[in-house]
């Protein structure tokens, strides 16, 4: 039953991935002007000799004189072999630029997700069980403000406070000496020491919305007949709340992997830019602003794919923990 369900979900992800790659490619080709002309112009600007033969080779490779759909298939064919095209701004293959940054982005998102869960679960349960208590009001207020503040604004304010009152710079993910150093245990430690500020900034609004969801769901479940049944059995109040209604209200938490995780990665774009983190965000922004579309397209494609994979994972997890879904 479960395997059939998983297989079906995976099959359904394939057309989605296809559609998403089409959209990403449409974005790549959307800016007016021919990619090669821009490329040649940049080369000329930087004083390089425009090598006609090379341009022809590129034209041939990417099929720029061909219709959209053929261009798309050439591009996606390359992507499937790990070739994302060339960044004309960096004069490097895109694939050399993106992977480390994507890895850092994913690390950051995972850390944020952990933080979010660790905060939201207990707070959500507390707020629902002690509805309208002082603690509930306190968390609700914080939550509302957390939801209402755009992440980048929160980051800016935090930076301002750090600089003006503590004289320290909170941007970046590494200390200076590790910035370009190869990966080592010490560098990992340095990352761990720096990552918590962006984690808090990114995690606050996600935590706020999860607390609200958890609270609302749990409030719905708390008065279900099965809770009365459990109470009539003689279970203690906390034990029965944790065993029954929380167990059922927790489903949305599992689905957070589906929406919060990709949202954290893509939402981090702006925060990462403000905090100048060496993640995918700032590079993607830069590429978008410079209309360096192969680089930007690669990021968009990867982020979209991550979203779909995230949804897939959360659907499967949901089916694992909730028998009703897999039997449907």
């Amino acid at each position, binding site marked *: 039953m479960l395997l059939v369900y998983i297989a079906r979900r995976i099959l359904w992800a394939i057309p989605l991935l296809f559609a998403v790659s089409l959209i*990403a490619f449409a974005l790549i080709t*959307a800016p007016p002007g021919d990619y090669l002309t821009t490329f040649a112009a940049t080369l000329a600007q930087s004083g390089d000799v425009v090598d006609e033969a090379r341009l022809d080779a590129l034209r041939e490779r990417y099929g720029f004189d061909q219709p959209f759909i053929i261009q798309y298939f050439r591009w996606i064919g390359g992507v499937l072999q790990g070739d994302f095209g060339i960044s004309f701004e960096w004069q490097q293959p895109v694939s050399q630029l993106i992977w480390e940054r994507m890895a850092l982005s994913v690390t950051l998102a995972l850390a944020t997700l952990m933080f979010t869960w660790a905060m939201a679960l207990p707070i959500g349960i507390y707020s629902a069980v002690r509805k309208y208590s002082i603690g509930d009001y306190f968390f609700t207020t914080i939550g509302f*403000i957390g*939801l*209402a*503040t*755009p992440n980048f604004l929160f980051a800016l304010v935090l930076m*301002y406070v750090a600089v003006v009152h503590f004289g320290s710079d909170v941007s970046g993910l590494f200390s200076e000496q590790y910035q370009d150093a190869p990966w080592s245990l010490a560098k990992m430690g340095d990352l761990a020491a720096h990552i918590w500020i962006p984690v808090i900034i990114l995690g606050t609004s996600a935590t706020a919305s999860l607390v609200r969801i958890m609270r609302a769901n749990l409030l719905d479940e708390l008065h279900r007949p099965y809770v009365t049944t459990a109470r009539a059995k003689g279970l203690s109040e906390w034990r029965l709340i944790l065993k029954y209604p929380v167990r059922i209200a927790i489903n949305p938490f599992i689905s957070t992997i589906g929406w919060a995780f990709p949202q954290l990665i893509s939402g981090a774009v702006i925060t990462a830019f403000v905090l100048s983190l060496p993640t995918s965000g700032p590079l993607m922004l830069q590429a978008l602003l410079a209309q360096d579309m192969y680089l930007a397209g690669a990021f*968009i494609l990867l982020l979209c794919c991550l*979203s779909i994979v995230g949804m897939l994972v959360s659907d499967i997890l949901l089916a694992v923990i909730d028998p009703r879904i897999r039997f449907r």
Partner: protein
Amino acid sequence: MTTKSEIDPRALEQSPEDFASQWRLIWLAFRRHKLAMTGAIIILLLYVIGLFAEFLAPFDPNATSSSDIFHPPQMIRFIDRDAEGGWSFSPHVIAMTMERDSFTLETSYALDPDKKIYLDFFAKGDPYELWGLFPMERHLLTTENPDEHFFLFGADRLGRDMLSRTIFGTRVSMSIGLIGVSLSLVLGLILGGISGFYGGRVDMFIQRVVELVISLPTIPIWLGLSAALPQDWSPLARYFAITVILSLVAWTELARVVRGRFLALRTEDFVTAARLDGGSRKRVIFRHMMPSMVSHIIASVTLAIPVMIIAETSLSFLGLGLTPPIISWGVLLKEAQNIRSISEAPWLFVPGGAVVIAVLALNFLGDGLRDAADPYSQDNH
């Protein structure tokens, strides 16, 4: 009837709400929500500010002044004390003068207690055309002397008045939320309605499209689309393009709400009854189903506006959304992008405060509306 004599003696007082229509019941429920009421008032105020921005702003938001670069905020005083100790009502601010350190060339401002700048209500100031139609020059509050300036919220790096700019930003940011949501609503209503009403294959197809759009990460798509906009478009064209981009991604939630309600309602007995009463499809939908949906839709719409506002602000902040000369909160916040300018002029955060207030108020309002949207829910059990 026999039942009349059989009234439960414990029954609480009969409510006077027997004659109350849906909207009255919703209003009664909504009114009890203090936060939501506050939110409603704030939102109303913000839209009024947006509507009369030219009149309410003391100055032309684009007027620069080289002598007022990063001018700090001033306190407004309403009571003036003259030399003899007499009192009079005349609003004024204490002037500040710029000083430049001759060695470091850094500027700073010092209070000049002897110099007062007098303000006047409904005084003549920078001329403007209200809504592009009525040429006027009166402002709610401006300096008596048009050559003088005052800065309640400080000034930016070109000496422009942040208060006037924030007021003009209100117009753009609040309206982009409203227009964007209206576009999403049209899309959501049409697609969600079709999906919910026809069901079957049409529903399948639309649901798949919704699923696809939902699985797209919004921010990169927004960024990508905005980046793809031609750079040479006029500000107005850009404004509408950004609105369209925002709503293209945001309609799915509304479509889901509409479809969900539609499906739920379609199986309600009273809708079947309406069909059997001989009502046409149109009548069944608009006379019988719509009234049950409208309140829910209004609530969802209200909750969708803040998302739009934050999105616009973020895009503009990055330089991918609206660009000067349009003034929006996001455009204004772009000025606060680097740590040097904000540590020097923290009042550049003021538009950020406006964003937070607007979004909070809209969320409160939306939550209150959602809770009040179905005044019959406890009736069913």
